[in-house]
């Protein structure tokens, strides 16, 4: 198990780095899809089958297809890419570095909470359903309402103004 975990982790990190390194937006997206896959593999190692497959269906299957869709329409290439000055490089390095520092400090200060006797079957659909709909019903419903509001917002934003037909 340990070996599988390390192989998967290395592959995940390499893929995640390739998302940023690769110059081509389409390839970046494909590497991101690969990253999602490897994360799903981690979920399976943790016996969270439901989460693993939902991750693939929702992220790799739907959201990333939409990303790909948009990027293909934008047709990004080097000629139209905005020129970045020295100042933006500088700003990026400073903000990125300070964020990195904060994360490292936060990790140093915090204790890792590792459950010594985890419930191995919590990730199966049935148990997850019981937990979500019995113990955490209110947060679950509130978050679904939030999603619903976002959906309505998008539909409203995209609504075309009615054009009066002239005969």
């Amino acid at each position, binding site marked *: 198990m340990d070996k599988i975990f390390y192989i998967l982790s290395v592959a995940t990190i390499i893929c995640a780095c390739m998302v940023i390194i690769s110059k081509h937006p*389409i*390839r970046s997206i*494909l590497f991101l*899809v690969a990253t999602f896959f490897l994360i799903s593999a981690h979920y399976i190692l943790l016996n969270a*089958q*439901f989460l693993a*497959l*939902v991750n*693939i*269906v929702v992220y*790799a*299957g*739907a959201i990333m*297809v*939409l990303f*790909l*869709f948009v990027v*293909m*329409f934008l047709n990004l290439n080097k000629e139209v890419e905005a020129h970045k000055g020295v100042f933006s490089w500088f700003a990026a390095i400073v903000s990125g570095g300070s964020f990195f520092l904060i994360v490292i400090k936060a990790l140093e200060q915090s204790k890792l909470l590792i459950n010594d006797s985890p419930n191995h079957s919590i990730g*199966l*659909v049935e148990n997850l359903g019981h937990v979500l709909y019995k113990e955490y019903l209110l947060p679950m419903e509130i978050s679904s309402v939030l999603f619903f509001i976002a959906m309505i917002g998008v539909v409203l934003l995209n609504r075309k103004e009615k054009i009066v037909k002239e005969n």
Partner: protein
Amino acid sequence: MSWIILKIIFISIIFGLSLFIAMYSTYAERKIAAFLQDRLGPNRAGPFGILQPLADGIKLFFKEEFIPLKADRWLFLMGPGFFMITALMTSAVIPFGPDITIDGKSFSLQATDINVGLLYIFGVVSLGVYGILIGGWASNNKFSLLGAIRAASQNISYELAMGLSIVALVMMSSSLSLKEIVDQQAGWHWNVFYQPLGFLIFIICAFAETNRAPFDLPECETELVGGYHTEFSSMKLGFYLFAEYINMFVSSAILATLFFGGYHFPGVSSMDPGIVKTALSVAVMFGKIFFFIFLFMWVRWTLPRFRYDQLMNLGWRVLIPLAVINILVTGAVILYKMM
């Protein structure tokens, strides 16, 4: 150890069988098209043209391998391969027959019985569109790109209705494992009688997901030359065309499993368990699959193609609301039965 060997043999059989059935589906399609159009169809290669698929395959292998100059070479090669892999992956969770006993050990005629089998199918189906998108975009051709974009939007739209139509079924069976769903349908308790609307929505979505007529907009030749595979030649084109038939086989298998009792048939409970019963069950399963493959072809050569806006309206304004209503009604009935 022998269990693993048996599994490997079984998986290879399923793999070979899906390829073989897909191969002869191309022949069947041409024969059925010919019958519906009052023609003879292929009848030169072998008796009744039975060797036609082989001839087609050999022809495709010998065609010129052509890669457009400005195409993204790697992605261009990856597209058809990816499409083929996703088409072949789906059959892993389909139960093709009841458990058989070999040397006193039970062996299931299913590659793997994961308890989220239904979600696995959705996952793989939703990945299928990458093969089309990547191939269409990498060709560096406007028609290919348009075909790919159409495929993506069509698949995403119909996946929603498909998922919702299955939710009602899962509410009834309270399991995501295909094996359990099949076993609950023993006797005449086929899901199609309890979920007729769900079945209708599901089959329409299955047509759309496999890019078959009347929803074959991504390769609409009157508008887009050849759609997403315009630039593909040789066996790469063969992969795209062939994977469509594998998808058809898998969709038919899923339809039979979810709604038509899988390998169960009337009178199965009164038979003695043994090799005859197993063989008959598998035969019944494949009979159901062949019926649905025939249905796919029948519809293709009967109905004209939809217009693109009609396709989108049907998906978003008809099928999704209907599927939601179906879920509500099913939920109400289940609640009523519980009280």
